[in-house]
């Protein structure tokens, strides 16, 4: 390539003179790099825990680690989105300048190279800033996780050079990759566009964009379809991430709807105002590309919030309902002497159960799975185990029983070996004694009780016609040291705790994503409105007052924000209702509730950010209006 030095020189100067335009990309990328540096540091510290570290500490570190990994995935997604959006925008705004370069002799390859050089410079700059940010962020994240009780009080994480390097390199790569499509677009600018105001309207949505948008929507639908066939412990992350391709697909297709959604939203304004509403509506409708690219970050913010929170709430409720249904017992008895309740009149069967977790080694991976330590006698009368194949009695002789689908997922065969590590014991090889149809979401594994020690709770089924409350009272009379609760209450409490845990995770993910995409909202809207200096000056010259121009900007920003929010709610509805249908398909029907409160709060935040970041640059542009009218 000719003139590389010249290009890098021009790129550097462009970057320097357009810092505000690139600021969003740089801030987003720097935060992403800093954050992943912090996350990886934390994980590195955690994995290097000294051998004597107590198990609860190990576990806590692992759990927060996997939350951080999910955050990193969302972070990478948001970063690519923000950086790609920013670069697309700077290219769209510089069409004329790029056309001039083409006219004075830059080849298409050189123009592409120029934008890529800018991307390299911006990405390296952002990654250096991010590396520095990683230090305070590591301390901050550790403190936050300690505060939430997810990490023990004494935990101190160190920033590791490997982690910094591991964040720096992807940061640069993500920055450069995200700019690639903008660079391609830049290289297609025709030199004739440099002539006068021959601004040829580009098609609002090209074929590649249609293809990409539909592909992402299909990918989202595919992920939804995978939920029922995925192994039960893979369903949770699948539901969390199903929103990403849906959101991206909608964002890509946004230019196709933005014009008429925006115009529809603006129509009432036209009636309420004299001129400013009409101007705003026509601006929103005519500049489709600009409207769409300003609305897109709002769409992503609202869509991510709604579908992450809505999806996890739905899944949490399904899991809770599932737990309710997996027990047939009436009462749960715990405490010393609980084992003797079988003798109480009215008790048909009493089955002692221990609960815990086991490590399963299957498909060359280790997975932690919930397990119940049981005795085979009477188990069918306190649990919903239908269509049993094999023999549950095998649970006595180093056998385990599993949900049919779960067993399939692990590749276990009836009578075949099952490799487990039990808490505090060496890994052992057991035998799959029985499979059954448990819960749709994959219930716990059943293992022999002597292998899973722990506090025993006794599940009690009351005989036909018996009154569980009377039986409970009878049990409590025998000993005041036992606790008796209805099974429904116990499972509801457990389900609630689980749902709360999932909600905290989802809120953490969402909060992080929102903080991130709001940067992009502010950046695009500031760029979009700040660049319309000459248009505002023209309005002033034909007699508009400053206040009128600012009102027009306000209406416009409200319309754009509303457009993004509407499309975001559409994504949410699609994701949540789709997931509900999927869950219904696997036999777990729960009512879907869209997370209105959180979505509303995020919409409010978006509207505030869009209006603020449009009015401020517009006001600045109007202040310098003499400058704007005398020079181009």
């Amino acid at each position, binding site marked *: 390539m000719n003139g590389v030095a010249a290009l890098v020189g021009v790129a550097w100067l462009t970057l320097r003179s357009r810092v505000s335009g690139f600021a969003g990309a740089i801030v987003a990328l720097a935060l992403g790099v800093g954050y992943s540096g912090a996350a990886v540091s934390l994980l590195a510290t955690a994995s290097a825990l000294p051998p004597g570290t107590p198990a609860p500490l190990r576990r806590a570190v692992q759990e927060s680690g996997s939350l951080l990994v999910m955050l990193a995935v969302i972070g990478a997604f948001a970063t690519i989105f923000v950086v790609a959006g920013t670069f697309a925008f700077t290219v769209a705004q510089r069409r004329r300048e790029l056309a001039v370069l083409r*006219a004075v002799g830059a*080849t298409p390859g050189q123009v592409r190279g120029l934008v890529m050089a800018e991307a390299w410079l911006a990405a390296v700059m952002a990654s250096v800033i991010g590396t520095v940010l990683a230090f305070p962020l590591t301390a901050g994240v550790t403190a936050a996780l300690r505060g939430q009780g997810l990490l023990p009080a004494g935990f101190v994480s160190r920033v590791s050079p490997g982690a910094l390097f591991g964040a720096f390199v992807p940061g640069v790569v993500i920055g450069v990759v995200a700019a690639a499509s903008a660079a391609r677009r830049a290289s297609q600018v025709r030199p004739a566009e440099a002539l006068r105001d021959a601004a040829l309207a580009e098609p609002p949505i090209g074929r590649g964009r249609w293809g990409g948008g539909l592909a992402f929507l299909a990918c989202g639908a595919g992920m939804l379809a995978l939920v029922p066939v995925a192994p039960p412990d893979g369903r949770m992350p699948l539901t969390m991430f199903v929103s990403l391709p849906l959101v991206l697909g909608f964002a890509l297709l946004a230019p196709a709807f933005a014009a008429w959604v925006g115009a529809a939203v603006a129509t009432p304004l036209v009636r309420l105002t004299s001129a400013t509403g009409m101007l705003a509506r026509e601006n929103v409708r005519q500049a489709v590309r600009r409207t769409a690219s300003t609305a897109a970050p709002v769409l992503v913010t609202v869509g991510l919030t709604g579908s992450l929170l809505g999806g996890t709430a739905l899944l949490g409720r399904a899991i809770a309902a599932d737990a309710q249904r997996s027990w047939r017992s009436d009462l749960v008895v715990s405490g010393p002497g609980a084992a003797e309740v079988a003798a109480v009149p009215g008790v048909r069967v009493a089955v002692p159960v221990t609960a815990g977790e086991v490590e399963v080694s299957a498909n060359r991976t280790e997975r932690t799975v919930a397990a119940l330590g049981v005795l085979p006698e009477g188990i069918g009368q306190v649990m919903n185990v239908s269509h049993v194949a094999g023999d549950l009695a095998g649970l006595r002789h180093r056998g385990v029983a599993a949900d049919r689908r779960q067993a399939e997922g692990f590749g276990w065969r009836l009578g075949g070996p099952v490799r487990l590590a039990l808490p505090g014991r060496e890994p052992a090889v057991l035998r799959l004694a029985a499979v059954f149809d448990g819960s749709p979401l994959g219930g716990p594994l059943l293992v022999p009780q002597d292998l899973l020690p722990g506090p025993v709770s006794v599940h009690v089924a009351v005989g036909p016609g018996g009154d569980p409350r009377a039986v409970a009272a009878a049990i409590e009379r025998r000993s005041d040291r036992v606790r008796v609760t209805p099974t429904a209450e116990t499972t509801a409490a457990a389900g609630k705790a689980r749902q709360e845990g999932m909600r905290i995770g989802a809120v953490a993910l969402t909060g992080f994503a929102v903080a991130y995409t709001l940067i992009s909202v502010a950046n695009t809207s500031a760029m979009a409105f700040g660049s319309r200096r000459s248009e505002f000056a023209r309005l002033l010259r034909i007699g508009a007052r400053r206040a009128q121009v600012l009102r027009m900007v306000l209406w416009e920003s409200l319309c754009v924000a509303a457009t993004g929010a509407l499309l975001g709610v559409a994504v949410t509805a699609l994701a949540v209702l789709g997931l509900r249908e999927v869950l219904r398909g696997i036999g777990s029907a729960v009512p879907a509730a869209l997370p209105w409160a959180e979505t509303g709060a995020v919409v409010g935040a978006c509207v505030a950010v869009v209006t603020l970041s449009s009015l401020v640059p517009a006001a600045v542009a109007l202040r310098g209006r003499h400058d704007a009218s005398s*020079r181009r």
Partner: protein
Amino acid sequence: MNQTHSPDAVRLIDVRRVYGSGPNAVAALRGVSADFPARSFTAIMGPSGSGKSTLLQCASGLDRPDGGRVLVGGVDLGRLDERRLTELRRDRIGFVFQSFNLVESLTAAQNVALPVRLSGRRPPAGHVEELLRVVALADRARHRPAELSGGQQQRVAIARALAAGPEVLFADEPTGALDSRTGREVLALLRRLVGERGDTVVMVTHDPLAASHADRVLFLSDGTIVDELRSPTPASVASRLADLEDGDRREAV
């Protein structure tokens, strides 16, 4: 530059250009043939919509004609792919725009050096300073476009157009965005380039006063060349243009 100058810097042979297709097709050029001799200053005039700008775009390789041939320094532009065409435009054609089109982030000197640097070379020592001296802006070399007046920006743009030593300089309404005094300065500069340096200038304008600075004026109407005026004066150009516009109006009635 090492090339022997052919007597005609630019030749157009039966150039046609149609925009759009089907019933919406508009023929902007309907077979234009013209020669632009080296060391000449030609103005192209015509009523709006007559195809002036299309002619300029086709002649300068910014746009490709649908029919006919365009030769610049003896090279047929139609035979060049996009990259070679860009390189030819870079090395052998200078372009001056109505709206100056300087790169805002570069200084005057950097803007002037840009075409040469885009070709992967460095401008020879003193080259940029020399060009800025030609346009009388040697003292503004380190200023950015925003710090220059309109007339000064246009002179920087002219220096940029001259940077690669082009065979021909195309100017599209070069005084359109300037007041009449600075406009005259720019026209005098173009005149001097032809007279003193032996450059070739082709200029599109709608201003009879501007056109009177040229050696000859070509009149374009409805996509064809309808007249030619040598040694023009503002009055003779204005009256010829008025005739053409009247003709248009009579046709429209």
